[in-house]
C-alpha cells in the first residue's frame, strides 16, 4: 500500500495538486477542492482511492441534505409501526439507527477515502454542523449513548462549486486547492490518457478550436475539460477528419458537433453570430 499520490494512469495531476493531496493525506486533514466545473474535482477522490488502494465512500450532497444524515438517522416511524405489529426487533433501538456515509467511513478497517461532493449545494449552515466531526473525527449517538470514533482518520476530499461561501471556522480545518484550468500542454496529456490512439493532427486541430472557443468573450459557460473529452469522443465516433476542423481562414468555420462544447442556447447563438460576422468581414 503506497502513501504518496502521484496521479494515475487515467488521471493527470499537476505538481501542486500532488503536493496538496500528499499534505492532506499525511496530516490527515480534509482537503477542499474548488475549480471550474468539469476540471475533475469529483474524480480526484476516486483516483486517490484507486491509486492508494483504499476503499472509497461517497457522500453526494444535495440542497436538502442535512449534516446529521451523514452521521446517522433514527428511523422512529418504522419503530413505532413495528411496536404496533409486535415485532421483536422493536426492543433494540439499534435496529432503527441507519448509518450515514461518515459513520461507515469511520468504521472502515483500513484508512478510507471519503468524498463529500458539492458541499456548497447544501444549506448555508451545513459545514458548521460538521466541524467537530471533521476535527476530532468522532460524534455522539444520542439514542444509544455511544461515541463513534474513527478507527483511522479518513482521507476526506470535499468539493465545492462556489455557489455558497463557506464559513471561516470550516475553512480553518481544511487544506485548500484550486484546480486551475489546464494549459495546452497539460490538456494534451489529459487527452492522451483518455484517447491513447487519437491522431496527432486531429488532437492539434481540436485543441486549437477548443481554446479559441474558450477565449470568446461573453460566453456564459466556458467549455471545460470534460466537455472537450465528450466532444473528442463524438469526433472519433463520427470519424471526423482533421481537415473538417480547419477552415481556410482559420476563424470562420463552425466546428462540427459543437453542441458538445456549448451548453446553452445563448452561447450557441452568440457563437453563430460571431462566426457569421467573421465570415462577412473576411469576404
Amino acid at each position, binding site marked *: 500500500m503506497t502513501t504518496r499520490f502521484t496521479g494515475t494512469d487515467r488521471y493527470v495531476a499537476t505538481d*501542486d495538486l500532488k*503536493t496538496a493531496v500528499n*499534505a492532506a493525506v499525511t496530516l490527515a486533514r480534509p482537503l477542499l477542492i474548488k475549480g471550474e466545473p468539469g476540471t475533475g474535482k469529483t474524480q480526484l477522490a476516486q483516483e486517490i482511492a484507486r491509486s492508494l488502494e483504499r476503499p472509497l465512500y461517497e457522500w453526494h450532497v444535495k440542497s436538502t441534505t442535512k449534516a446529521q444524515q451523514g452521521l446517522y438517522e433514527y428511523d422512529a416511524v418504522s419503530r413505532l*409501526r413495528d411496536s404496533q405489529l409486535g415485532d421483536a426487533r422493536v426492543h433494540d433501538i439499534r435496529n432503527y439507527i441507519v448509518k450515514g456515509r461518515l459513520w461507515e467511513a469511520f468504521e472502515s478497517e483500513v484508512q478510507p477515502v471519503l468524498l463529500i461532493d458539492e458541499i456548497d449545494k447544501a444549506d448555508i449552515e451545513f459545514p458548521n454542523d460538521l466541524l467537530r466531526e471533521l476535527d476530532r473525527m468522532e460524534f455522539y449517538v444520542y439514542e444509544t449513548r455511544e461515541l463513534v470514533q474513527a478507527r483511522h482518520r479518513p482521507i476526506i476530499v470535499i468539493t465545492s462549486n462556489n*455557489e455558497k461561501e463557506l464559513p471561516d471556522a470550516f475553512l*480553518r480545518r481544511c487544506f485548500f486547492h484550486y484546480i486551475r484550468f489546464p494549459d495546452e500542454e497539460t490538456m494534451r496529456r489529459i487527452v492522451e490518457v483518455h484517447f491513447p490512439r487519437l491522431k496527432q493532427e486531429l488532437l492539434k486541430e481540436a485543441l486549437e478550436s477548443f481554446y479559441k472557443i474558450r477565449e470568446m468573450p461573453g460566453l456564459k459557460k466556458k467549455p471545460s475539460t470534460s466537455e472537450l473529452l465528450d466532444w473528442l469522443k463524438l469526433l472519433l465516433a463520427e470519424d471526423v477528419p482533421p481537415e473538417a476542423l480547419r477552415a481556410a481562414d482559420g476563424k470562420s468555420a463552425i466546428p462540427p458537433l459543437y453542441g458538445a462544447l456549448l451548453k446553452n442556447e445563448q452561447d450557441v447563438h452568440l457563437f453563430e453570430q460571431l462566426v457569421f460576422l467573421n465570415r462577412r468581414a473576411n469576404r
Partner: protein
Amino acid sequence: MLIRFFLMLREAGLPVGLTEFLALQEALKAGLADYSVDEFYALGRTILVKDERHYDRYDRVFAAHFQGLQDAFEALFGKEIPAEWLRRQAELSLSEEERKKIESLGGFEALMQALKERLEEQKGRHQGGNRMIGTAGRSPFGAHGYNPEGVRIGQEGSRHRRAVKVWDRREFRNLDDTAELGTRNVKLALRRLRKFAREGAADQLDLDGTIDATARNGGMLDLKLQPERHNAVKVLLFLDVGGSMDDHVKVCQELFAAARTEFKHLEYYYFHNFVYETVWKDNRRRHAERIPTTQVMRTYGPDYRLVFVGDATMGPYEIIQPGGSVEHWNEEAGSVWMQRLRQAYPKNVWLNPEPEDRWPWVPSVKLTRELLEDRMYPLTLEGIDRAMRALNAK
C-alpha cells in the same frame, strides 16, 4: 524566518490563523516539502490559503518575502552579488545518476541559512564545483547549474524547469478582488425575510397530529404526515442599471447572487433611473424586448414583496414630470407609476447603494423617499437587515 513570512501574509490581509501556521510547521516536519522551494510554495499555498481569490496575494507576499531575503543580503554586504559570477560561462550536464546523487542540504531554511554563511565565507568569484555560489556548478546557489533544490540567483529562464519562481507569474491575478465578496453575509441578512409555509407533498411526520389522531383512535397508531416547511416568500426585484449605477455594479451583483439562492420565488426586472410604463429582463436587448409594467403587475400577485435597488440620483423632473425620462417620452410621470406599483404591492422597500448621509443633499432621493413614505434603506448589511424587517412587518 517563517514567522516573518507568516506575519507578512497577515499584513497583506490574508486571513491566516495560528492553526494554519502550526499545520504548516507540522507538514514541514513530516518532510512534505521535500526540501524544494517549489514544493514549499505549493504546500504553503495549500495549507495557508483557503480561497482562490487570495492566491494572487499569496504569490505577491511569497515573492516579496524571498526578494526581501535577497535585499537583506545586499544590506549585509553592501552590494549586489557581482553579476559576473553569475554570467553564463560553461555548461554542466549531468546524467540521471549524478542528479540523484546530489543530495539535499536539508530544508529551505537551512538552504537560506547556508546561503548566508556561504556568502560570508566566499570572497571571490566562483564557477563550477560543488560548494560556492556561481554559475554552472552543483552548489545549491547560483544559476545555470544543477542542484534539485537550488536557489536561483540571476538567471533569465528556468533551465531545468525546477527552479524557483513560479509565484512571479502571478497566474491568479484575475481571481483577486480586494473588496471582499460578502455573499455569505448578504445571505444571512436576507434570511430575515422568511415566511415558512407547508406546501407540496406530505412527507414529514406530523408529531402533534399523530399523537392527537392516535389518542382519538383509542391507542391504535394513526400516522399523520405533513409537507416540509420551506421559505414561501415571493420577491419581485426591480434593479436600476446604467448611468450612475455603474459605480455600484459589484454590490448589486452580490445582492442579486445572494437573493437568487435564498428565495425560491424571485422575479427580477431592470429599469433605468426610475420606473415608467415599461421594464426589461435582458439588458442586452433592453430596447427590443420591453415588458409593460402593467403586465408585471397583472402577472404577480400582491403577496410578492417589491424591492427596488437604485441610487435614486437623477433630475427631479425625471420623477415628477410627464415626459421627464432621459431615455424616452413617458406619457405619465414616474411618480404615478411608483404609486401604482406601491398600490399593487403593499410590502415594498427601496435599497440605495449610496451612503445614507448623502441622501439629504440629493433632491431626487428626497422625492423618492417621500414617495415611498421613507421606506428607503442603505445597501449595507445593516440596511438590508432593516429593510427585511420592514418587509416582514404586518
